[in-house]
């Protein structure tokens, strides 16, 4: 029981990290990044490949974050030229290109065979509950750090600048500030967080293959921040938790409604997630943690 809850908590914490990155990008600057899973993928593969040749995880995680941020840079340049909704589709395309490259370049990634035997984090603690708890603690620490950093950014002059960009880009330009540079930096920062999340994911699941990095993951993260409340750090936590309960809860729901077949259950789960998304956008656009005073 405990171990299952810890497993759920670890996956949730990984998604929270993704949500914090996206929250920074969309919640603060209005960047419609629909290619988040691409950065996640880059981080995961970097950590897996470096982990396999024995490079310690702190280094490989940093490398993954750096590579993800680097990949975000050209995308940031593109974002400056495009409308929001166009950028959404272009960034979605970016994440698909990342997945296709990882699938095709077998010499590096082993393609569709995937990378097996990625070592566990903190393996010296064995394989039991202690190790899982230690990984969870590490993840929570990283999340708290990311949350605090997020907060600092929001309250710094940089953050006020970011919010100003979201609210009125022209005015910022008129003040002689360069919104373009800020936007790109924010995109890169969010991407780096996704890269770190990827590192944790690869080491936790122990096996990665390109089909794990599909746009659906991006949509899940979007759902999490919409449900939780855009622009709120607490929203990223709450939204992800609720999303996970939706995704995993149906396993337990089936005990209560036994007349539904397993195949139908999968469809119903999808439908419930869809319905939740629709209802939240309709009736609670500011999310659970959102504040009513703004927007």
């Amino acid at each position: 029981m405990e171990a299952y809850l810890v497993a759920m908590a670890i996956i949730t914490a990984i998604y929270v990290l993704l949500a914090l990155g996206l929250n920074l990008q969309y919640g603060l600057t209005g960047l419609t990044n629909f290619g988040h899973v691409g950065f996640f993928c880059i981080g995961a593969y970097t950590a897996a490949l470096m982990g396999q040749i024995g490079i310690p995880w702190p280094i490989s995680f940093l490398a993954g974050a750096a590579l993800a941020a680097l990949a975000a840079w050209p995308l940031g340049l593109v974002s400056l030229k495009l409308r929001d909704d166009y950028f959404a589709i272009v960034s979605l395309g970016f994440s698909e290109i990342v997945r296709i490259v990882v699938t095709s370049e077998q010499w590096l990634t082993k393609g569709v065979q995937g990378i097996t035997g990625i070592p566990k984090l903190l393996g010296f603690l064995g394989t039991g509950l202690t190790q899982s708890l230690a990984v969870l603690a590490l993840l929570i620490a990283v999340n708290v750090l990311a949350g605090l950093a997020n907060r600092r950014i929001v309250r710094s002059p940089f953050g006020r600048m970011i919010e100003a960009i979201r609210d009125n880009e022209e005015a910022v330009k008129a003040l002689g500030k360069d919104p373009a540079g800020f936007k790109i930096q924010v995109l890169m920062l969010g991407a780096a967080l996704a890269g770190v999340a990827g590192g944790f994911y690869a080491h936790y699941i122990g096996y990665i293959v390109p089909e794990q990095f599909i746009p659906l993951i991006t949509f899940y993260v979007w759902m999490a921040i919409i449900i939780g409340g855009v622009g709120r750090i607490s929203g990223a936590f709450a939204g992800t938790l609720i999303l996970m309960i939706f995704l995993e809860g149906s396993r337990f729901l089936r005990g209560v409604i036994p007349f539904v077949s397993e195949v139908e259950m999968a469809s119903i789960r999808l439908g419930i997630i869809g319905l939740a998304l629709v209802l939240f956008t309709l009736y609670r656009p500011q999310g659970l943690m959102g504040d009513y005073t703004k927007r």
Partner: protein
Amino acid sequence: MMNRRQLLATMASTTLLATAREGFAQGAPTFRIAALNPITGSGAAYGAGMQKMILAAVEEVNAAGGAGGRKIEVVAEDTQSQPQAGVLAAKKLIEIDKVQGLIGIWSSGVALATIPLANDANILFMCTSGAPEITNPQVNSKGLVYRFNTTGDGYGRAFAEACAREGFKRPATMAFNNASGIGIVDGFRKAWEKNGGKVVEAVVYEPNQPSYRSELQKVLAAKPDVIVTGSYLPDTTIILREWFQTGDTQKWMLPGQAANPDLIKAIGPEASEGLFVVNSISNEMSTAYAKFDAAYRKAMNQPGTSNIYAAMAWDMVIVLALAMEAAGPNANVAAINAKIREIANPPGKQVSSFAEGKEALKAGKVNYDGASSAVDFNQAGDVLPDFDLSVISKGVITRKNIIKI
């Protein structure tokens, strides 16, 4: 926190009652296993049938009085054919339901992600996935993993043998871009080149496209006399329809997972005329197969030939139950595991059902002859099933000959 735990535990036990479908007295010793099948996602065509056959086989075992004095209970979960969902499902099964075996895992991705969990928990693991790594000693480090299906290499050798028998000289290959599709054509190329042959063209394609015409064109440009595919049903349907409409007339050799009555129904008798099918054969002459087939028809309203994985899932339960019986009352997983090869492999009296085996075990050793194959495991944990070469003619799949590799 305590409240939620209690809630989860209660909910978990309701899941159990709902899925076990077997009423038995409270307090009776039971052995709990997990049906971890691909109900949705890319394995959806097979998952439901696998799950139902696991339940049906368990029903048989319990009807025969249980194994080693215990009834078997089943908890079912969907892997969604995805590693992440598979891992969470396996965690739940191991931690909350305390299952002692994960059986019916289909996709290689899910298998590779969940085997470490089974190893950590020291429970049995039975899958139908093709990726070679699965039974590699590093992955199968505790010898708890059993594969009831052939590997891609085995499949490839059968394809090479079939091509040689039919006198083909210029084979080309087309593969679905995933581990299993590529595994088959790679296995074929290795076997074919070892015998001095040459593969004239090899194309790997991405799924979910509106058309595969350019892929086909590249293959056909090499003027092959046969195209060997590592493919699935939907993509094969589309490719063959497009191929027929290009007017080419070379031959095709397809794996069984792609060529079944649904394919013939989808492309019609004219386009399917003369297609070759290589399949790892269910042990169709065996009594075990007849039992499985009857159960499958009853549960799914389709012949057993349409889902070889369901036959494997059936065998998983019977093998496990016979090993439990041989290990005796209240044996732990290690003791049961030690008996698996003993009851599945020769020597011993050949048996084809649990009831028969239970009876025979009183007298001596048994050798289970399964529905999916003879179910004889090698050191790594793989079976080596026989294959057959069939040809589709007038809308019917007819066996030409058996291939032993």
